[in-house]
């Protein structure tokens, strides 16, 4: 009789620690892969599992190995049919048919892919953007919107009455106020009945009278002190978890004139992805509307938005007008939370910037929950502009909007790590909003 051990119920993921170490090791390479994915994929696709190729740069495991192409070797092979000693066989291409000890995990498979979980993907994505940990956590968190039991309440609907708690309160009160017990009353009644049946004597009559008065008093007391009083009643209390108020729509506005190059579009895309992640966490349903503009604006699909170029001048206000038109047509603001993100290199035709500002002042900012504007600039320009108010006419015009509307954010970005500050306010506001609902 052997010794049996059933290990099937042992904790799983024994090698999770090893996996984490491995991913950390391969971080740079995986980050690059995720970056490519962001560039080539759709905005909403990031927030999922991804299968990625096996990294090989930082995870090589070198050891002293014989090199293939040197020296003399011998191979013993099975299955000879036609060879006799002295026959010559041309060498098979690269490698060779008989490489001893070739089995291993040297990562020789080029097309080898493995799956990163959603959390791991997001970690890698956030890495570049230098998000604070708090934000990372709240973005990754999967919120469930269920009513949750949270103690007891004195008010509520009858279906939520907590019987146990209610009866306990009632019992305590009955003891404290000395509500006569049923047994006590019955004993008295019996005694009275017994005396009534007994022969009629004075002593008995007095006793009977006293007993009757006592019973009467008890009866009255019993009636005054209710068995279950409204003050006893307790209800199960449910914490109303914040339910996402239905739907959000995210407007992506981008200048696609020829001045927006590959790098600018890549940065803009990450900016959009981050906003989308944020919205996805808070709203059940998100529509994304892509509006691109040159000197005229139009709604396009994601593919066209990021990858096709259009020649023409730059009139930013056309995009805003298009956005207003779409909101009026499809997204009434009482049903939709409207978020807008605009990316541009700051170019605008003379005189149009003021028009943009007035459009925003006039109606759009009242409709929008949040409006973020990023101006994508060259890394060299960061030094020149810094935090000054100088800049393109669009920048200056938007400054006035920012001053007036707290839900308008704007910044200049040159690097991925510059993106987060635009959203800082959005994320900072988050915890308090959840609490207050």
């Amino acid at each position, binding site marked *: *009789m*052997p*010794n*049996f*051990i*059933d*290990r*099937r119920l042992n904790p*799983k993921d*024994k*090698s999770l*620690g*090893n*996996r984490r*170490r*491995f*991913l950390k*090791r391969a971080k740079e390479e995986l980050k690059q892969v995720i970056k490519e994915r962001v560039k080539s994929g759709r905005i909403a696709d990031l927030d999922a599992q991804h299968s990625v190729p*096996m990294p090989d740069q930082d*995870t090589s*495991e*070198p*050891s*002293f*190995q*014989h*090199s293939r*192409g*040197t*020296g*003399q*070797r*011998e*191979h*013993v*092979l*099975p*299955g*000879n*049919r036609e*060879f*006799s*000693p*002295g*026959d*010559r*066989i*041309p*060498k098979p291409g690269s490698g*060779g048919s008989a*490489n*001893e*000890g*070739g*089995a291993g*995990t040297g*990562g020789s498979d080029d097309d*080898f*892919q*493995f799956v990163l979980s959603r959390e791991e993907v997001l970690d890698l994505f956030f890495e570049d953007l230098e998000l604070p940990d708090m934000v990372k956590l709240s973005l990754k968190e999967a919120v469930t919107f269920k009513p949750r039991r949270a103690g007891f309440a004195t008010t509520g609907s009858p279906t939520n009455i907590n019987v146990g708690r209610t009866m306990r309160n009632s019992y305590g009160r009955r003891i404290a106020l000395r509500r006569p017990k049923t047994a006590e009353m019955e004993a008295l009644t019996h005694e009275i009945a017994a005396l009534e049946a007994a022969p009629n004597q004075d002593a008995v009559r007095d006793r009977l009278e006293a007993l009757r008065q006592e019973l009467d008093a008890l009866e009255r007391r019993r009636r005054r002190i209710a068995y279950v009083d409204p003050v006893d009643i307790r209800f199960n209390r449910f914490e109303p978890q914040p339910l996402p108020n239905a739907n959000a729509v995210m407007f992506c506005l981008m200048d696609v004139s020829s001045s927006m190059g590959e790098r600018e579009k890549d940065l803009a895309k990450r900016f959009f992805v981050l906003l989308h992640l944020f919205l996805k966490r808070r709203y059940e349903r998100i529509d994304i509307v892509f509006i691109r503009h040159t000197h005229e604006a139009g709604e396009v699909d994601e593919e066209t938005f990021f990858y096709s170029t259009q020649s023409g001048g730059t009139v930013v206000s056309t995009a805003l007008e298009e956005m207003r038109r779409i909101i009026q047509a499809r997204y009434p603001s009482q049903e939709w939370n409207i978020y807008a993100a605009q990316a541009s290199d700051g170019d605008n035709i003379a005189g149009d910037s003021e028009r943009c500002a007035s459009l925003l002042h006039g109606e759009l900012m009242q409709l929008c929950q949040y409006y973020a504007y990023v101006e994508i600039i060259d890394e060299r320009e960061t030094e020149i502009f810094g935090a000054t108010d100088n800049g393109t006419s669009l920048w200056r015009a938007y400054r006035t909007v920012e001053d007036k509307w707290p839900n308008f954010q704007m910044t200049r970005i040159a690097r991925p790590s510059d993106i987060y500050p635009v959203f800082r306010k959005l994320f900072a506001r988050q915890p308090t909003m959840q609490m207050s609902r």
Partner: protein
Amino acid sequence: MAKSASKLLFESSDWNFDKISRAYDAIEEIAVEDLHLDTYPNQLEIISSEQMLDAYSSIGMPLMYQHWSFGKRFVFEEHLYRKGHRGLAYELVINSNPCITYLMEENTMAIQALVTAHAAFGHNHFFKNNYLFRQWTDAGAILSYMDFAKKYVARCEERYGLPAVEAILDSAHALMEQGVFRYRRPPRLSSEKERERARERLEYEEQTYSDLWRTLPKSGGEGGADAADEASERRRKLNLPEENLLYFLEKTSIVLEPWQRELLRIVRVVAQYFYPQRQTKVMNEGCATFVHYTIMNKLFDQGRISEGAMLEILQSHSNVVFQPAFDDPRYPGLNPYALGFALMQDIQRICTEPTAEDRDWFPDIAGNGDWRDTLLDAWANHRDESFILQYLSPALMRKFRLFLLADKASNSYLEVASIHNERGYENVRAALARSYDVSANQPNIQVVDVDLLGDRHLRLQHNVKNGILLDESTRDATLRHVRHLWGYDVSLIGVDAKTGATLYECSTAATDG
């Protein structure tokens, strides 16, 4: 029906502990009484497929310290498994006392019985009796050692930080193949005994001290001879040349902290523990396959396994011992199960029904009739290389149609050197045996010299056999790992083992610029 059912060990394909236990007892009876196997006590553990993957990635140990390379291996194995490129093994067995065998929960009852016979008796007997395992591994202590190792590494990570521990382990892993003693037993002297010896030597020198020697004039005065003397003396003191690089670094490196030395030691112990398994792959699998085949057939003959179950067992068995020919697209190399099993069966045949040829080749065992003892003796006293050299018969070479290819790097063709005929048997057999000599197939790299009081430049020598050099990119990367552990410059010199000519030289000083 009732009568036959009572004899059967199991009927349906679902397993439960009761059935496995019954099958185990029946198997044990045959293993012990018929085959005279001698095993460690068994511990059968049921695991899920995911746990099997876990076990794979930690090189088959139930306990292993944490390192990213195991994570990489897991990801790799998982990929192969999920894509269906590779099925999981039905079992995994650990050379420990008690001997732990993992059974997969997905197995059918027939497979569980097969696996029990294969691992819990075949492998188990081999582990307990083969001389390599007896000499080099301590089955009783390995699990508690791994437990210690795991905790020690975790403690180091806590104390010195993950990157520091990882750096040492990376370097140690790179030298794992050079971290075993191939040609001698590990030194067993305890430090106390060693001190005792040093004291005795000193006493002896004091007793025999004579002041007169001092007054003698120094012989000669040639500095060259002196320097050479000094060098050989210093090599002697360090026990050089030393084949076990990890051992040398652990004991001699000046820059390592005590905990870093302990980490090297852990890696070295693990490497040494697995070294016998690598040297006996064919024999070990051959032994286990032969044992399960014999036992299962016997159970079937006794009517204790149904025909259906036996068919399933035979199908699984023939999958395991399948050997495609070299030009088959499925050819992965010589299948150790197939070769090992064939060798064992062949020995059985030679003992019981020898041909004239066998009597020529194996005069000592042919027709002795006692195949059980012959096999037990072979299993106990050989490793793959010596086993094949000793027992591979011409009949088997013909059956496998083995042929020998000579492969010279400078030629654009391979030449058929020998085939399975009268003139070729010896050559083919010797070459096949050589290909299973692990130490001959790994680069032979030794520490040859270091001047601890001088520049501390560590000199390694690669004894080049048959002109096979090292792959340069991995060589340089590995040398950098050696340098990391040694702390000073390291150079590697390739010397032809036959002629003594220097073939190449490289150094971390040069590669680092």
